[in-house]
């Protein structure tokens, strides 16, 4: 099913906006809950003698945990839609139930991980669980809502052959993948190591020596999400928004899947390669090399 151009673009714009919010909130949730690759440093810190007050949950890799969360919510939504509830109500209830289940997993994952670190004297802070878990649930709820809404739009408006839960599963996996690839770099590469010089990669020798002091008092996971919301979250949102928007933009413009659609998609990809190259050149010129070329150095001396 291909809608007319105006309606198609409207649905696509809505999907793009939902995807941007979903991407942003997914990343921020995994920052406040500390999940995926960057969490390896939080896990390692007590072993290096750095006890901390950072929430430490890694239910699984982000794609799998978000796929699970989105498919749970979408299944509930589908059941409620069969009971003839309004779509908005059904999606909201579905996302809420999935978020509560996610909260249960977060708490058990955190408690389990900290318990496994008892030999390193890492305490389990109950107050931290009390105020961080609702934040995780809230972020997850919004991300779920957006993902299920995208799946619903695709199923009802764009004529995708997959049912809503399966579409939500795929988008959950994709948003988890992008959150892990983009936003976590800001959390792991920058926020956790703000004590090292800006503009260099993390020296392997510093692994596990995360910053534990906050802007005021001891650093908490809420401090981390405050920082990551300035760049990591929005960048992830833009990444996921681009995926959803650009993948289906040629399809809407060219009224279906034709060879012209494929050529347009390919041109988008080529433009992105060029953009990445421009970014690479710009950043190398701005920051400069870390060391001099031996031959050039010898020639000068």
């Amino acid at each position: 099913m291909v809608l007319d151009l105006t309606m198609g673009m409207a649905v696509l714009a809505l999907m793009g906006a939902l995807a941007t919010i979903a991407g942003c909130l997914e990343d921020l949730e995994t920052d406040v809950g500390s999940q995926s690759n960057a969490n390896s440093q939080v896990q390692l810190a007590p072993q290096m003698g750095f006890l901390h007050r950072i929430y430490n949950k890694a239910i699984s890799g982000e794609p799998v945990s978000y796929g699970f969360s989105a498919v749970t919510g979408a299944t509930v939504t589908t059941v409620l839609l069969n009971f003839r509830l309004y779509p908005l109500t059904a999606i909201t209830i579905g996302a809420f139930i999935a978020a509560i289940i996610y909260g249960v997993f977060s708490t058990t994952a955190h408690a389990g991980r900290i318990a496994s670190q008892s030999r390193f004297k890492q305490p389990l802070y109950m107050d931290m669980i009390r105020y961080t878990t609702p934040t995780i649930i809230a972020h997850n709820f919004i991300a779920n809502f957006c993902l299920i809404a995208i799946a619903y739009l695709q199923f009802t408006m764009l004529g995708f052959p997959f049912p809503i839960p399966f579409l939500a599963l795929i988008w959950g996996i994709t948003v988890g993948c992008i959150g892990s690839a983009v936003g976590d770099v800001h959390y792991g590469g920058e926020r956790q190591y703000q004590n090292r010089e800006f503009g260099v990669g993390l020296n392997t020798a510093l692994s596990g020596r995360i910053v534990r002091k906050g802007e005021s008092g001891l650093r908490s996971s809420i401090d981390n999400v405050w920082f990551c919301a300035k760049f990591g979250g929005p960048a992830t949102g833009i990444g996921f928004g681009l995926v959803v928007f650009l993948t289906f933009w040629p399809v809407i413009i060219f009224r279906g899947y034709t060879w012209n659609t494929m050529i347009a998609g390919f041109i988008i990809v080529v433009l992105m390669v060029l953009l990445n190259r421009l970014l690479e050149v710009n950043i190398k010129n701005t920051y400069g090399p870390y060391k001099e070329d031996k031959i050039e150095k010898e020639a000068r001396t």
Partner: protein
Amino acid sequence: MVSLLDPTMLTNIFLIAISGTLICIAVHFIPVGGAPAAMAQATGIGTGTVELAAGSGLVGLLTASHMYAGEPNAPVSLVLAAGAMGSMIMMASVGIACGIMYAYGVGVPFASAQVKRDPITGARQDLYVSKGTQGHGVPTVCFVSGLIGAALGGIGGALIYYVLVGIYTPLITTSAAAVAGVFTVAVFYVNSVIPSYGVAGTIEGFHDPKFRRVLPKDAVTSFVVSLLSGIIAVMIAGGMV
């Protein structure tokens, strides 16, 4: 009734095996740095092989399935192209967002530790690798390699879907697409996990020496596993009658 010895079925099983192998090969092209890349300690995109390969491939599956549902008489080449397009756009979007993050969020230039010069642009890499790291960011060669991987993964996923929908549609008309989609995701995950053991967490792309070292073994393993997956995919159709 579906027969395993039917020449058409044998061809379908073989096509699934080929598609699985394509997905496995695709994973080796995708520049993943795992946890070290998330801390700007290694070149590539800061996530796992399975995550990124499956993430991009599944977007390709979405576009391919959408296309096939709208135009059931479309040639197979167009279905495969739709899969490749979806995957490539996903990979390119992630690459750009990731590049912006490394450039302005962490503040590191893109540099590969595996080559002195970028094989595509000829730009120096070694001078930009900071102390105590194995490179950082997504240089052009990694970006292009990722796109090749995404295209192969998208084609592989779309081909599995195309074959399975063809088998299941006469048996279960309404839910054939969903069953074929779920099975495609399963084959995708299986073939994304197999190379993970070979690449051991990080690989920069086709220019990485690890690429040539592990690819042949992984591809053979993947072919055998995908062949089994194909047999199972055909066998489950027996229960649909």
